[in-house]
């Protein structure tokens, strides 16, 4: 076995475990190439690797990490992590029970089997896309083309007896196009790509032509766009917005650590919190027979990753857990403990969170609205313990008498998610994944977000 696992065999150190312990070696490799208006402003690679240990004693955790991948470093981090746990245990004396036992052995490597391209070839690819954009859309005021590739490789052994090795790559190409209208810039961003290394995800620069044409067409309409009317409206949220809603507004409130932090979801388990049309799942690795954007088979505590049905036909069913929260709530861990860097401790994180498809057609959903909006592209989003959410909307259209009208300027939608989901009256039969999600919660982590289009009542910011 190559990579991290080939450089150090962590199983040789299990004899040094003094208490419940996780030992993980990890390497994150990042490539970024950026062209701003034809200027090659970034041509960078970053490789971060090392080893960490986390030990548990009576409810106290100790953690240590080192960038060295040597036997001495492994022994040292095991020693320091254990000492840290013992120090905190002696100070706090919480006397908590042992963590639930989880054992699995697993290997999941999504690296490409194709020959790897050199950095020069990657630069040429991005440069070609940039040049094509400049040639095909000469009235653009500006353009930014960025390639971001992230490979996360992990190997883990635990005192429970779990062993796992994974390499989960993601390759995304971001294209930002900007027009000037009345002296003011108007831009539209789109991200292409997803799970896999570059050679697996992208074919030729021209394979993106059609998608970038559509992006430019939307931008042209947006540059003539109008402010939406502020207030409550009947809207169709396209799949990408439904996905970010599933993640931000519902998923976070159902992370068990946030439930302990006071999330409203803690009061509503078993209750109707959404329209019966809504079923929402945090998928571990496979959804509806397809591999998810961020497949997780074993989490960073060595727990086999399970799908978590958060809402089933409108009823709140369950939360996302690591071992400690599972112990607290008296349930089984779900495999949601994930760490971003070798030097990060696992936290409760989502994997691939999605609303399941329904039976309606998008065109029927639009046709059913007399006066409202079709909201297509999300920007960033945030949510709260109260399930009050906010998402930026960077592309949308008016709906007038069942037909799409003028484009709208950038806006924001907000509301109380558990109230808003009760207004869902149609759910489309198709489903799309947003493949470039990066969630922030002490650490960043790649996530998948997906869904169908949904028709609902939502509050729009405007003028």
């Amino acid at each position, binding site marked *: 076995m190559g990579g991290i696992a080939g450089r150090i065999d962590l199983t040789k150190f299990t004899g040094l475990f003094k208490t419940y312990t996780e030992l993980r070696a990890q390497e994150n490799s990042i490539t970024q190439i950026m062209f701003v208006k034809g*200027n090659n402003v970034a041509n960078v690679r970053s490789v971060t690797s090392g080893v960490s240990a986390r030990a548990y004693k009576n409810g106290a955790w100790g953690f240590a990490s080192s960038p060295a991948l040597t036997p001495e470093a492994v022994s040292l981090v095991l020693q320091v992590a254990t000492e*840290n746990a013992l120090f905190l245990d002696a100070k706090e004396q919480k006397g908590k029970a042992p963590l639930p036992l989880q054992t699995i052995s697993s290997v999941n490597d999504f690296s490409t089997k194709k020959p790897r391209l050199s950095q020069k070839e990657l630069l040429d690819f991005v440069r070609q896309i940039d040049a094509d954009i400049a040639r095909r859309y000469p009235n653009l005021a500006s353009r930014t083309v960025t390639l971001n590739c992230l490979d996360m490789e992990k190997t883990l052994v635990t005192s429970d007896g779990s062993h796992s090795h994974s390499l989960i790559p993601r390759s995304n190409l971001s294209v930002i196009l900007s027009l000037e209208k009345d002296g003011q810039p108007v831009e539209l961003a789109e991200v292409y790509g997803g799970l896999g290394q570059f050679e697996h995800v992208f074919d030729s620069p021209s394979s993106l032509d059609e998608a970038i044409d559509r992006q430019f067409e939307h931008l042209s309409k947006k540059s003539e766009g109008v402010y939406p009317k502020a207030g409550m409206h009947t809207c169709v949220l396209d799949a990408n917005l439904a996905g970010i809603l599933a993640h931000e507004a519902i998923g976070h409130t159902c992370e068990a650590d946030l439930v302990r932090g006071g999330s409203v979801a803690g009061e509503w388990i078993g209750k109707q919190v959404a329209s019966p049309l809504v079923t929402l799942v945090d998928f571990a690795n496979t959804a509806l027979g397809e591999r998810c954007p961020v497949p997780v088979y074993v989490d960073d505590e060595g727990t086999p990753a399970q799908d978590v049905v958060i809402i089933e036909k409108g009823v709140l069913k369950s939360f996302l857990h690591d071992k400690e929260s599972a112990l607290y709530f008296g349930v089984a861990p779900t495999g949601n403990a994930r760490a971003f860097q070798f030097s990060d401790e696992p936290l409760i994180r989502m994997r691939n969170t999605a609303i399941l498809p329904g039976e309606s057609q998008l065109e029927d959903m639009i046709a059913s609205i007399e006066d409202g909006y079709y909201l297509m592209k999300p920007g960033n989003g945030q949510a709260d313990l109260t399930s009050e959410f906010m998402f930026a909307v960077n592309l949308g259209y008016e709906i007038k008498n069942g037909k799409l009208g003028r484009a709208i300027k950038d806006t924001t939608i907000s509301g109380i998610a558990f109230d808003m989901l009760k207004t869902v009256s149609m759910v489309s039969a198709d489903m799309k994944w947003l493949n470039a999600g990066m969630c922030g919660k002490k650490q960043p982590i790649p996530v998948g977000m997906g869904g169908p289009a949904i028709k609902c009542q939502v509050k729009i910011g405007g003028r």
Partner: protein
Amino acid sequence: MTDPRKIAEHGVSALLKAGANKAHCRLVRTERHELNVASGEMSLWRTTFDDQVLLLAIKDNRKASVTLNKSDPEAISGAAEEVLAMTQGAQPDEANDIAESQPPASFSVGHGTPDWEAMHRRMREHLEDTSTRYPKVLLMQAILEFVRQDSYLVNSNGVDLSAKKGVYRFTSVFSAKENAKVSSFNGIQVSLRDLRLPLSEAGSVDRLYREISEQVHTRPVPDKFTGDVIIAPDTLGDVLNFLTFSIRDRALISGTSVYKNSLNQALASPLLNLYSRPVSDEIADGYFFTADGYPAKNSTIVDRGVLLTFLLSLYGSKKVGQERAVNDGEAYVVGAGETPLEEMVKSVERGIVLVRFSGGNPSDNGDLSGVAKNSYYIEGGQIRYPISETMLSCNVADVLRNIEAVSRERVNYGTKVFPWVKASGVTISGK
């Protein structure tokens, strides 16, 4: 090889040996000791060590860089070869450069090692103090960490800079709960040179805990209106980000900045004075040299509403033909005004105190909308009640022009020092 300066020097030598015309190496050695509270309980003691080595080369005006966290000579030599290979495909650009020769300089601030016992004692005191004084408050996550960073920057023009910094950082994410009613969460991070004072006295911690205890019971503002906003120091940075982003490399090189022609022009109310002070005593957690390799200096960005400098890097300055900034920005300080906060509230006929803003990034033209969090409704010069489900829409460039008052009081977070700022003309809408 463990001497960080020698590692950085080796990085430059390896790049030159691999064929670079110009070479730049920066090493940051970080030691972190972190005490974590989760769900109100001390949960984790975390100790991490890391090296970040940046190797940057320019060959025939083509630039590339690699960052790795290994500092042994073999790893650095291998990475140097990789950097030079990466330059081959890069776009030649005469603006690519490294800092010119300057006298060597060393800087130091703060403690070299953490006081573990004091960290535990202050955190325990904080948990007990909070539960006594603010029983509704839930500490979802609190972190007290000591971070020691030793930085070295060497380049082939003879630049030789080093800095040692030891700083405590306290982060708290919290909510409040009363029976089944829960508040929004809020959060704060404060940097401290030492642990002489209780953590509740850091930054605005105590005020935010008091306020969140009130925010269990909220309601939307009554309707939609155009009013005043008093922007609290806790969220003023979100507003200023639009300005500071718009005067940096990317916005100016792409030409999308609304301030691209605003140098030495008024872009804000004359009441606004904005500084970047990375090497001042009031900033506990600043920095000593720029990413390009120049000793950082304090600067005035906006003087009585007039933009005095862009925040351009060496590359950006050559690209757009303007002066390089004397620092990398951040460490922002907004000058105190003359209006007591109490008077500022009394002057508002209808509006809100904005304590946290949950919104998207502003558009390039400054249009912004989002949700007012942990905030309060003002009517008739009095704070009426904490709000929820209330949206704001505005243009940030207009807000900066519409500043009507800046408070005498300011809050020091260790990384920034901000007052309360009152601006008019914001669309505020309830449910």
